[in-house]
């Protein structure tokens, strides 16, 4: 049986032993082994010592018990410290192993694109929708009446020289619209709230032009038509300027000059200060400082009369209502905005071209 002194010596020795063992422990299981060896319920050295106290006199037993329990608590604390230390080391080593090279490229989702002409058309539509316009879809296969005759271009009219039109086989006279203007006629004939009109009509058009840098046998236009009591040429100017400024920016002056189209009177050609050079003159504007951007004008009373005639009653009385119309090429806008030098690129569908369009 050990005496109190011996027990104290033993405690001292155990403390030193445990400290050493914990210092040497490199992982969680080594720490657990230390705990088992000294504090294990069956074979732990400290536990065994505690059990051996039962033979001591009460006072000595109490003192020794106090010392041993203090040791036990101390060991538990040291075990916890060791565990924490080892846990931290392990975490650090894991984080080190999990390092990646973030200079490698990321995994991008496949990126699609709208066609630049679609994106441009949406932009144009959005500007007009914001100004209270409806968007009207009109057929691409047309007839002579809607495409020419109702637009004050009867057969043999010299103005038809300006249009070189594709016709369909079969003798029906069906043709591919050479401009979006027949949309004006179709809308006025089917107008849900006559005589008020405020529409744009975007879409594909066709002309017999051999493809080259500036021509494509298929192209896209946007037509606008506004009709109502008291619509004036000043309204045309204000609307066109507001639209062009929304599209290109308010820093570009807009110029209006007299022109000729059979379906408008007066007819007005609209120029925008060259967005490439700002108006000083460059290759894009051929040195003039101006870019032809659209044709426009006040609706020719002959167009109202043609529509009235077809309706069989006077719905658009040229004395009571006036209107303006304009049309512009969507390719023209896209070419100017994006610096495209060859109109054919829009229809070749080469991804190297299409994937350059971002927003």
């Amino acid at each position, binding site marked *: 049986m050990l005496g109190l002194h011996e027990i104290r010596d033993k405690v001292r020795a155990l403390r030193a032993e445990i400290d050493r063992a914990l210092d040497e422990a490199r992982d969680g299981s080594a720490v657990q082994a230390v705990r088992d060896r000294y504090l294990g319920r069956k074979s732990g050295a400290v536990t065994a010592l505690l059990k051996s106290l039962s033979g001591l006199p009460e006072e000595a037993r109490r003192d020794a018990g106090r010392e041993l329990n203090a040791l036990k608590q101390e060991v538990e604390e040291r075990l916890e410290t060791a565990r924490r230390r080892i846990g931290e080391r392990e975490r650090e080593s894991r984080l080190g192993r999990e390092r990646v090279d973030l200079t*490698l490229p990321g995994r991008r989702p*496949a990126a*699609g694109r709208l066609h630049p002409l679609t994106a441009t058309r949406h932009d144009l539509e959005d500007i007009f929708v914001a100004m*209270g316009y409806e968007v009207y879809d009109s057929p691409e296969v047309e007839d002579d009446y809607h495409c020419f005759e109702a637009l004050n271009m009867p057969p043999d009219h010299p103005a038809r020289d300006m249009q070189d039109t594709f016709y369909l086989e079969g003798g*029906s006279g069906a043709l591919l619209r050479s401009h979006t203007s027949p949309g004006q006629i179709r809308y006025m004939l089917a107008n849900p709230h006559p005589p*008020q009109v405020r529409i744009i009509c975007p879409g594909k058009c066709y002309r017999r032009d051999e493809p080259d840098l500036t021509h494509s046998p*298929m192209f896209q236009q946007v037509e606008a038509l506004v009709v109502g009591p008291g619509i004036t040429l*000043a309204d045309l*100017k204000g609307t066109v300027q507001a639209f062009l400024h929304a599209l290109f920016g308010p820093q570009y002056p807009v110029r209006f000059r007299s022109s000729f189209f059979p379906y408008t009177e007066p007819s*007005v050609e609209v120029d925008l200060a060259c967005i490439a050079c700002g108006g000083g003159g460059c290759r894009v504007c051929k040195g003039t400082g101006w870019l032809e951007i659209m044709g426009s004008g006040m609706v020719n009373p002959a167009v109202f009369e043609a529509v009235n005639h077809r309706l069989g009653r006077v719905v658009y009385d040229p004395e009571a209502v006036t209107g303006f119309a304009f049309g512009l090429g969507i390719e023209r806008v896209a070419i100017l905005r994006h610096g495209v030098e060859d109109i054919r690129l829009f229809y070749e569908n080469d991804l190297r071209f299409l994937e350059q369009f971002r927003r």
Partner: protein
Amino acid sequence: MKVPLSWLREFVDVPVEPRKLADDLTAAGLAVDAVETHGGDAVLDIDVTTNRVDCMNVYGVAREVSVLYDRPLRPLELTMQEAGPPAAEALTVSVEAPDLCPRFCARVLDVRLAPSPAWIRDRLEMVGVRPIANVVDLTNYVMMEMGHPSHAFDLAKVPEARLVIRWARAGERLTTLDGVHRTLTARTGVVAGPQAALGVAGVMGGASSEVSEDTRVVALEAAYWEPLAIRRAAKDLGMRTEASHRFERGADPEGPVAATARIAHLLAKIGAGRARPGLIDRYVAPRPVRTALLRPRRIEHVLGGPVPGESARRILTGLGFGLGPGERDQVTVTIPTWRGDVSREVDLVEEVARHHGLDKLPFTIPPGYHVGGLEPSQALERAIRVYLEGAGLTEVINYSFVSDAQAGRLVPPRARLLNPLSDELDALRSSLVVPGLLRALQTNLRQGRRDVRLFEVGRVFRADRGAVEEVPTLAILLAGPSRPVHWSEKPPPSDVFHVKGLLEGLTERLGLGDLDTAGSAEPPAFLHPGQCAAVVWSGKRIGWLGAVHPDVAAAWELRDETLVAELHLPTVLASQPPAPRVRPLPRFPAVTRDLSVLCDASVAAERLVAWVREAGGESLRAVAIVDRYEGAPVPAGKVSVTLTLRYQDPARTLTGDEVQASVGRVVEELRRRGAEIRGE
């Protein structure tokens, strides 16, 4: 139209620099494309609009300039000293076709053929006309100067010195000045001798009566031709001359008198000859004086800004319009003979507007009267494009024209063009995929591209017994890796389930309800018969999807398996998906059970799922195929499928027994159908 500044100055003072003049003319409707310099002289290149035939000459432009700067317009010098016997004794003229030639004027000139003096040759060259000899040069000079074309006959070569103006006899033959032998139609006018035609009226003279070095006496013609007659003749003959260009747009009926006088005046001035006394003037169908009413208030009504009355009066008068006395609010305006393009009040408003200055009008925006916006169908079409863009597809736009031969029998018949640009573009497409998207894929494969994911939204054209129907259509094409290539993996190639998934995702995302596929009795010939399906939406077949047939892929040199789909959109776009209604979130937990099944590989997955659903009962909310395996160790002709069954009740927690009972029914049903249950 080229206009030398020095020539212009003969008729009007130009108080500004050429550049400024060009800008001002452009603003007023005579677009000056360029200002060139020519031996110290500025030459304006004016793009005259087709309606302004009166400005296709120097004097017409001078009139515009005189109004622009409020300077007097000097009259054309027309004086002449006639000599010799009366013209009428040397030449007779009869107009047999007033519907062709309302007016025919002629003079007889004694001439000495020689080269023109340098100043005439220079001016002709500046306006782009090649000088020949004085008499011919003068007809061209005067046409360029005051606009009216004329023609010189060698009188000695006019049989019986008699000109007859008539319609050609069908099949009548004539050699024109350009040396071409021509056969005429009955809707072509001619200037003839007593028998044979001598020239095509208003288009080109004939070789037989051409002026030559030996010519001593000239019959000079200047006529007013019916515009439509000249247009038709020029079209029939495939000819477009300076003369026909002017006549078919409507010349000045008074022009013949002035033109012949001006030529006679200049002939004497350059010492090349004299006119015999008298103008032969057959005005067989006189043109009426034309007028239009102008209500001055209407000017502001159309333009939206005030124009002072004095200003409008000055402009119209300066342009040659005659202003009648009229009432205060209504004036009768006489339209000058050279302004065939003007007939109505609004035309007069335009004349005032373009000279008053469009830049002086205010900028206003008309008041709104209703809300604008896209139609639901238009918004839906946009949403479709945006979904596919977001799913990684790039939009393409193909020509609506295709090669009829190339599309061949692969796709529905096409409407053919009467006047195509080429065999490559001779019909309207009846499909977006063939040849459009395949061609686009080919284009990109040739650039070395492998991962290609495209879509197009556009109209196809269905030819139906003469009528052509336009059908808004969507098409998709996938080829090559299904994802962008990345260092971490080799992405799997796109397969037919990618294209199906895109369409399912599209309808789901847009709230369009479910999309079904159905075996197609007659799959399109260009699809793999084992990898294609009809696409059914709302009980209607709206298109198809599938893998491109290996034979077609080989013919088109496609490298990877190519997946395509094409859907007709009208019914889809016409549907108006309602705003989604939110369901309450489930309050009681769901229970899932997995079931491994071995069944014949010929059993369609859709049927398997349907059996399970049917047997499972009401609390079986969802059945998902989570694994599918064919090949060893699964016996040949069999397939192993793992299903996840999801049970839930909105009102309570399901008991284990309830779920087990349902699974039992499912197992029993599957066994009855010949499937083997491998695990539960």
